């Protein structure tokens, strides 16, 4: 028994370590937010149902696109365009569901017909997937550098989103059609969708985004760790040349990885746009690509490629979200939030790579050569 646990920990060293870090964070937050009269477990704010629900909803959204970015990172690539793409897709999605007259006047606004929201969702997924595939072809087939391709995406999609929206905010509330079901599916809980309310108990309070994440995670885990495509993704990330010498079309494997990332981004874009109630093209989804990369790296993906796992990415995402929640709940000044996040990622990665000696090495005086 202990042996098998040790074996498991050995094979999934990074994940186990990060799970430990998560546990520590959760403990600190739980203890740090204990206050009399709070309804949560142990009187901790962190463990109140409301907070857990908020956490699960956010983890759902961030987790979905982090999985996409993680898969790209495993092919030794990178995707910097996530946040901007979400802004662009958000604008387009809201254009699809609002009547042309109420949109900000722009070329795109005039070109998009009003459709019912499920059709709009379909188109958003198609567009996101195609954009991802385009990135993939540029990186995999034309051998452009992923950093550059997606950096151009980062700049241009945000620019397009701002241009198409005349740099003004587009609101979910401007839709004339009934979006209540879309709201429930995007921002509500299981109970909302099934019974119209979320009062009935724990399970009914699970946010829909979290359920989507579980579905994504299961599918992605099987694809990545059990399927032929997954093996090719790891092999390409590790050693593209050797994989090519084994008859694998590595360019296409890379293209598919970006395609998956595009799909995940598009899928997450819709609940996120409902979550914020509007799309301010200049700030919507800003820095999301970096959160995704941070989550993937925390979860054991190597930027050199060929390393990583879906459970790891999920743990990484959860650490990030819990950290932010911790900063908010423990009443630290908001501006410190990012500093703390950065600090913890750094400590996590440092300890993971070098153990405690990493610190010693960091501060060791360099012996002077004679």
């Amino acid at each position, binding site marked *: 028994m202990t042996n098998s646990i040790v074996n498991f920990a050995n094979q999934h060293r990074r994940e186990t370590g990060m799970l430990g870090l998560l546990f520590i964070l959760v403990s600190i937050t739980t203890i740090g937010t204990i206050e009399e009269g709070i309804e949560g477990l142990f009187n901790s704010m962190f463990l*109140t149902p409301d907070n857990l629900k908020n956490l699960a909803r956010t983890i759902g959204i961030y987790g979905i696109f982090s999985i996409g970015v993680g898969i790209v990172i495993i092919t030794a690539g990178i995707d910097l365009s996530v946040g901007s793409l979400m802004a662009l897709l958000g604008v387009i999605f809201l254009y699809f569901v609002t009547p042309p007259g109420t949109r900000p006047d722009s070329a795109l606004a005039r070109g998009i017909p009003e459709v019912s929201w499920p059709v709009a969702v379909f188109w958003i997924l198609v567009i996101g997937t195609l954009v991802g595939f385009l990135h993939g072809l540029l990186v995999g087939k034309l051998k452009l550098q992923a950093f550059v391709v997606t950096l151009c995406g980062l700049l241009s999609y945000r620019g397009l989103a701002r241009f198409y929206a005349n740099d003004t905010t587009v609101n979910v509330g*401007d839709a004339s059609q009934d979006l209540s079901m879309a*709201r429930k599916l995007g921002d509500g809980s299981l109970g909302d969708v099934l019974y119209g309310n979320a009062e009935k108990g724990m399970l009914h309070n699970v946010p829909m985004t979290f359920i989507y994440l579980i579905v994504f995670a299961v599918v992605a885990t099987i694809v990545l760790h059990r399927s032929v495509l997954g093996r090719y993704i790891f092999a390409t990330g590790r050693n593209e040349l050797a994989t090519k010498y084994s008859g694998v079309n590595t360019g296409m494997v890379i293209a598919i990885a970006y395609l998956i990332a595009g799909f995940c981004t598009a899928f997450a874009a819709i609940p996120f746009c409902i979550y914020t109630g509007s799309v301010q093209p200049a700030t919507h989804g800003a820095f999301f690509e970096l959160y995704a990369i941070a989550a993937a790296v925390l979860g054991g993906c190597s930027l050199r490629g060929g390393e990583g796992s879906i459970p790891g990415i999920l743990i990484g995402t959860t650490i990030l979200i819990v950290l932010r929640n911790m900063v908010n709940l423990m009443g630290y000044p908001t501006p410190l939030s990012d500093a703390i996040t950065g600090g913890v990622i750094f400590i996590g990665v440092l300890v993971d790579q070098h153990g405690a000696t990493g610190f010693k090495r960091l501060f060791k005086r360099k012996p002077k050569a004679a």
Partner: protein
Amino acid sequence: MTLMTSLISRSAFCFLALTCVTSILTSCGGSKKSGGKKKVRLAFVTNASADFWAYAQAGIRQAEAEFDDIEVEFKVGDGSAAKQRELCEALLVRGVKGIAISPTNPSGQKEMLNEWAEKAALITVDSDAVDSNRKFYLGTDNVAAGRQAGELLKEALPNGGKVMAFVGLGDQANAVERYRGLKEAVEGTKIEIIDLRTDEVDFGKARRNAEDTLTNYPDIAGMVGLWSYNAPLILEAVRDKGVLDQVKIIGFDEDPRTLKAIDKGEIHGTVVQKPYEFGYQAIVALRAMVIEGKTPKDLEIPATNQKFIETLVIRKGEGLNYLKKCEAWKASIK
């Protein structure tokens, strides 16, 4: 087994490091758990980070100091609705009973504002979400502020003349309202407002707008900057051209360059909002509603549920004093 021990030692080390970080952070801020009886928690959430909100915070801290039964959390947004949602949801979990918020995007945030209004007393500050369930709105009447600028213009140009107005984005509510008020005030006088030039918050373009106006209208008599950065940039353009005595400049808000130029007589005057009052009054009102159970009506909020705080006109001789006041506010929150 070595692996297990190494894992444990790693975790332990991680824990130590994190605890250190946390304790350092706790000591330099974090939740204030003062002894004695439990205080009611209120919160103020801004839309973004700006000096304007630093002055508001000074008012908030003043109100907090005057009452010993409240503590106020001041949260700074990052310009996105997502961040405000994250902040407010966490505040509600923390048991905050009243929130004053400056929504980044009032119409799009209706749903979430209503949700929070169910759980806490909610008022909007500086920008209003009219059709939400907020208790009331506290802010500037920008039409009135525009009118005040118009009055300043009349003072400066008793004989009338051509005037150009400048702003960042022409379709923003406060720009539209200020411009409207400005035009109302000078109606029927010899002052002619030619147009409103926009710069999309590009400072270079803002200055070029001013320069081009000076070139195209050699007889221009007045220039009005509707956003805080406009007046200092207009001033630079006018100074460059050497027509300081010929062109009167009116500004908005309390940019230090504007305030200094007012006392030198280079800018005729500016209309400032009172963010300090926003902060102070918002907290006082929230406390009255949450602790004393008062309604907006008891607080003498007009039936429109919008309370305007008058803007202040700064003329020659008052600029540096006001600047000192601003700096004192900033200093008071440290």
